[in-house]
């Protein structure tokens, strides 16, 4: 069974996380300085997210955007990443993540997401997501 029970639940959780990161960390500023916008195409559940320095947008609105980097992965892979349990280069090599956009920018995203990874366990507790 998928970690995220529905698209709506995933959007609720990540809407909160991205907004928190943009408002309360340097994430938005650093993303802008790096010239990066990110698209996430998630399966199981199906969610399309677009994130820039202003925060997240979802689904039809997100699909209209052209992000610098697009990453495709399953919802469970997203969860592992935010729990810092995923080796992203390995996941790319094994096709668990497929990325489109300059490889240097893909790799540059990883350190920018660290503040969110630090906060993620508290969201897991709040939304009752497993952390094993």
């Amino acid at each position, binding site marked *: 069974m998928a970690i995220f029970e529905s698209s709506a639940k995933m959007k609720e959780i990540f809407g909160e996380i991205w907004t928190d990161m943009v408002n309360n960390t340097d994430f938005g500023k650093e993303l802008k300085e790096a010239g990066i916008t990110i698209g996430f195409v998630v399966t199981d559940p199906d969610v399309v997210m677009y994130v820039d320095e202003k925060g997240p947008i979802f689904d039809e609105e997100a699909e209209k955007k052209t992000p610098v980097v697009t990453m495709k992965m399953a919802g469970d892979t997203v969860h592992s990443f935010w729990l810092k349990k995923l080796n992203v280069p390995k996941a790319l*090599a094994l096709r668990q993540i*497929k990325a*489109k956009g300059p490889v240097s920018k893909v790799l540059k995203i990883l350190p920018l997401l660290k503040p969110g990874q630090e906060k993620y366990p508290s969201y897991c507790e709040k939304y009752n997501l497993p952390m094993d």
Partner: protein
Amino acid sequence: MDYFDVNLDLSDEDLALKEAAHKFAKEVMRPVAKELDQMTPEEAIAEKSPLWSFFRQGYELGYHKILLPDYVGGLALNPLQMNIVMEELGWGSFGLACQIAVVSFPALGAMYSNDEELIEKITIPFCECTDGSIRGCWGATEPDRGSDLLAMGEPIYHDPKVRCNCTAKREGDEWVINGQKSAWVSSGTISTHCMLHVQTDPSKGMAGFGACLVPMDLPGVSKGKPLDKMGQRDLNQGELFFDDVRIPANYMFVDPDFHEGIMEMLLTNANVWMASWATGLARAAFEEAFSYCKERVQGGRLLMEHYSIKQRIFSMFARVETSRAIARAAANLNFNISPGFPEYSMTAKITATENCLQNAHDAIQLLGGNGLTKEYLAEKLYRDARATLIEDGNNEILARHGGHTLLEYYPRNRDDI
């Protein structure tokens, strides 16, 4: 000699990078490569060798970190810029271009490890180095396993009967490495660090490999003699030996589950670099021949005025343009998607290396007897070019692996990206 770039959208930054790389290639690489070419392999790495001056100047300009992104201190070139700069370095000297790229492999590996300790200890200091004192090597090839190691996904790769020459066993919090790597390890005998591929699970054959980072000053590490070759004599290569060498557990950053994937990734990237350097070599050969044919008089007129020579020179020009186009196309694709599509990189490598050998051959033919002498660059280009059809995957084996890839994936679907 400059060339007209058919890409009309080059930015000022692209053009500045090209100019700077050409200056380095012309003023530093060519003279150093010529000197090294005429030395013994031992002399080429001795204290007074011009190799060290090449490293110092190359590191000062940051060419040693051309493969690394800016968040770890790398040059962060985009795919087009990487192709432009690499072609210029290949024009300067294929061997030295390869040399200054391969030194970054342990730093690149540490970055792929996702391990902050390794990035801090290995990648960052390498990127900050400006005197050439931190130099890596890529320890993949073995006495009994050359291009075989590039048979990812093919039956032989998973054959448990295949025994490898370098193995590692886990003992507590350490890995213990024993065995040897072949004489073809680029930068092997002058390295301070190695990105080493070792068999950790013999029951899986070559699929039981891992990859680790080895500081080369650890007890039990020794190096062989530098290899004496017909071409690319400016690229140091040589054997490595490991006798109960102990590394911390986290230095084994690739396990067998990851290894096949990272080898495919390395092959996909390295073949694009090879294609770019080979374009530079093909261009160098074309320029040597073109300049000569515009000055040399035979049969009462310039060589260039002879009908057959016009045709031959044009074929050389066409090979350069073809190689550049295909190398750039592969770079643009495979440095913009992860994981990449290796069949396009292999196509670029095979085409560009065959083109550079043909151009070097034609240059000698057009220079006649002069082309055979060390007074002219053509003979060195020919010897250098010959090696390109074997290094980074023998072209026949790459073609076989390419065919296997087509069998598995052709035609690619846009949704695969």
